């Protein structure tokens, strides 16, 4: 029994979950408005865009790469899709299909460059991020699109669950199925865990990379559409700078930059942790200027603690061997 609990507490998602429970208790004691359905739904709604992006980034991180360009892809596809919808009309299906197509295409371009130039993914996605975003700003001249069709901006709710939360739930479930139930999901873990072994096993690395980065681009595009629906306008640079926040959330959720490690549940917990922190601080009356400092501190402490325990466990297991 003791060993069971000890093993449980060593699991990363359990640790993060405990931190969330402690934080939620703390905030709900200090501010009665915190644990109300309205506040929690609002919290989920405002972080649904980040959650959708995080699902895409998680898959890339598990495959051993990194994608910095998904926020720029979201901006580009948001603009392209909105322009087409305003000009020719359409419905939700065409909106998601168009955006998804553009997003996946831009993601596949990342993958092809990484694969055929044999370059490190950070460098390529930084370059393509700069390229996509600058081209977007150049073409739009920084102008926003406000005249979105009514069907697009009207708020949709099922059982008082807002549309962005539903999309985020579907996306996270799809990612969960992909990673845990499909062969391609196991291949992605394999590629991230040991690329050489995956190659020798006969895994088609180039194709798998196209899928992974295409998936991330697709999720960026979906996030872009949901964001445009939420704020009822398309602002070219609205999503820029989001990439590092999302990366922080996914890493807090236990994904490793070295690849092969990461879960959907952990990612959700990472997003919830950051969301709850900022929301709770607002409710207990801390100035919004201090969010950055607190978030930074939480990231630093969390990643240090994780790495420190990993180091200690490694030492302990080495001692067993000797």
């Amino acid at each position, binding site marked *: 029994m003791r060993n069971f609990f000890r093993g449980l507490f060593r699991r990363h998602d359990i640790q993060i979950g405990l931190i969330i429970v402690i934080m939620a208790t703390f905030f709900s004691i200090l501010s009665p408005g915190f644990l109300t359905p309205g506040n929690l739904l609002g919290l989920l709604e405002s972080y649904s865009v980040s959650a959708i992006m995080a699902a895409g980034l998680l898959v890339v991180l598990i495959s051993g790469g990194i994608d*910095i360009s998904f926020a720029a892809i979201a901006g580009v596809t948001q603009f392209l899709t909105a322009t087409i919808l305003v000009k020719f009309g359409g419905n939700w299906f065409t909106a998601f299909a168009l955006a998804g197509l553009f997003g996946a295409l831009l993601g596949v371009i990342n993958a092809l*460059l990484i694969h055929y*130039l*044999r*370059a*490190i993914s*950070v*460098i*390529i996605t*930084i*370059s*393509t*991020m*700069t*390229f996509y*975003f*600058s*081209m977007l*700003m*150049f073409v739009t*001249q920084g102008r926003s699109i406000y005249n979105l069709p009514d069907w697009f901006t009207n708020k949709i709710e099922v059982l008082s669950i807002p549309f962005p939360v539903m999309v985020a739930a579907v996306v996270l479930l799809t990612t969960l199925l992909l990673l845990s139930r499909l062969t391609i999901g196991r291949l992605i873990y394999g590629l991230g865990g040991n690329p050489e072994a995956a190659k020798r096993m006969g895994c088609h690395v180039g194709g798998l990379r196209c899928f992974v980065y295409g998936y991330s681009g697709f999720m960026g595009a979906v996030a872009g559409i949901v964001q445009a629906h939420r704020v009822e306008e398309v602002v070219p640079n609205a999503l820029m700078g989001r990439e*590092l926040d999302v*990366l*922080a959330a996914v*890493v807090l959720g236990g994904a490793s*930059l*070295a690849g092969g490690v990461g879960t959907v549940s952990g990612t959700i917990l990472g997003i919830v942790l950051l969301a709850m922190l900022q929301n709770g601080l607002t409710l207990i009356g801390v*100035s919004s*200027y*201090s*969010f*950055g*400092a*607190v*978030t*930074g*501190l939480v*990231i*630093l402490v969390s*990643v*240090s603690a*994780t*790495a*420190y325990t*990993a*180091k200690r466990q490694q030492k302990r297991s080495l001692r067993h061997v000797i």
Partner: protein
Amino acid sequence: MSSNGPAGSAAASKREFPVLLPRDPTITLLTVLILVTIMIFSFLTPSRFLSGDTARAMAFQMPELGILSLAMMIPLMSGGLNLAIIATANLCALVMAGILTHLLPSGSSFPIAGAILIALLAGMGTAFLVGFLTGVVVAFFGVHPILVTLGTMTLVKGISVVTTSGTVIGGFPSAILYLGNGTVFGIPVSLILFLVCAGVVGVILAHAPFGVSLRLIGSNERATRYSGVPTEWVLVGVYVFSSLLCWVAALVMMARFNSASAGYAESYLLITILAAVLGGVDPFGGFGRVLGLVLSLILLQLISTGFNLLGFSPYLTAAIWGATMILAIAIALVRDNWLSWLKLRK
């Protein structure tokens, strides 16, 4: 052994002018790209591109990005990354700006030199503290540098935002402004500062024991530790060194804008990585030369100035910077493939 003698001495004599005759393919590639860019732009804008005014404008614009790129290059060479450089530079600038405006309100009798000295020391101390914290977490906790510096970036920027509530602090004595706008024999002081920094970084990386251990860590950290190098402390030094360069960049930034804020120069963050990698710094660590970085900065600046003269938007310039990066990687790959094909044929 005797058969190796003549060959060895020939190789040694070839290495006598490493700067004049660089045998580094990256540097050759960059030189060619720079010459091609100059030719294209002087053809497109005949009288304006090759003029003293253009050269002067470029000399004033380059140092800021240049010093920040040096700050990025050092951790890159050690196999890491410092995403906090811009945030660190802004915090240093704010600390110095705060002290200057507090000690020297209009009509105060505080000696100017004393105030500047206190401000400089405080800025340096801030940079040291941030670098030390980053280095300790990277080295002793073994956290990936991207994660640590993502955290320090958010934390440091958060501290800047909290203390200033998002406002701008401005109005500095002329001695500070001289660093950004003054010239010595027609050469901008900021450019001299950049060249001094580049020289110091170059010499340290190539010859100092610290630089050698830093590059070894970038190649193989475990092997370096087993060969008796205190890798943890070298890594702490790497991030302290990087932060101190941010402090120099902060001085130049303060002087050029005559103000300091939590949000300046943020678009430079990823451009510095681009400049370093374009300059031949291996993103996995271990390899890279300051000369390559300087050449890549010149190339990026030429592209930006040329497109500016042609009347293009700065966004298009940034897009072309991104494309240049990918193009350079592609050219290097094709060249390597071609070289190995030639070797195989022999």
